[in-house]
């Protein structure tokens, strides 16, 4: 009753909103944003290699080169940030006991992301995809969700771990 009255007053006069702020919307964790960021790194790496192979580069090519490098950098930061949030906020004792490799895996993701940011190296970015796919596998297992592997339906068309939400 009291809440309803306050709600009605709020609709008319609007109370100040105070945020009880979380790092991310509470309990919403999904490694897909990490996987998409890594696919973007791979795609930009491919485009950078292609552009680098051109003998004569136009000003447009140079501008595109800078833009791709910036995108690769930005998505590398996204990978690190999103992995840190899932690892730091979602993973707790039960998940870590079931998958003791998690700390080591996360550390490897951090180092490999740095390498992928620093270099135009397809092999490194592919290694990063394999690491984040493993991270996604572990994550979905701890949620009791089955997974399947499929090629992403866009370039670079590589195998990604997806949650099989129909089966779970």
């Amino acid at each position: 009753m009291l809440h309803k009255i306050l709600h009605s007053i709020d609709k008319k006069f609007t109370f100040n909103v105070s945020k009880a702020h979380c790092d991310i919307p509470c309990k919403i964790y999904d490694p897909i944003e990490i996987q998409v960021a890594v696919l973007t790194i791979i795609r930009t790496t491919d485009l950078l290699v292609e552009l680098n192979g051109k003998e004569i580069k136009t000003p447009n090519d140079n501008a595109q080169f800078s833009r791709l490098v910036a995108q690769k950098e930005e998505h590398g930061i996204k990978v690190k940030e999103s992995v840190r949030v899932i690892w730091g906020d979602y993973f707790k004792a039960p998940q870590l006991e079931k998958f003791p490799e998690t700390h080591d895996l996360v550390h490897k993701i951090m180092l490999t992301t740095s390498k992928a940011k620093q270099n135009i190296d397809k092999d490194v970015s592919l290694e990063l995809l394999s690491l984040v796919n493993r991270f996604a596998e572990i994550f979905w297992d701890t949620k009791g969700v089955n997974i399947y592997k499929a090629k992403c339906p866009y370039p670079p068309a590589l195998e990604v771990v997806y949650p099989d939400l129909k089966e779970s």
Partner: protein
Amino acid sequence: MFKLGIDKIVGGSMSPTIKDGSFVIFFSSKKMKITPNKVYRLSHPQFGSIIKRLSFEDADGNFWFKGDSHDSTSLKKIGAITKQQINGRIWLTIDIKSCITFL
């Protein structure tokens, strides 16, 4: 000057003490005591108006806050808060079921 106000709460970082969608009544005055474990309303440069529980006061006189939920923004991320940024102490909450809780 004594001030009393009502805020609407958005977010779950103070859950289960203050649930998302609750209303809170806060007060402030020049002589308001700032005591650990009590819940305060802060003006944060990054997050705006937020409510958090006071964890401790450091040796430099800065205050460190955190949420009640595990998902809350960490104490470190909120950072050191000065006395001037604390603009109210939460007195009571009214959740969506109209349940009143004094803090």
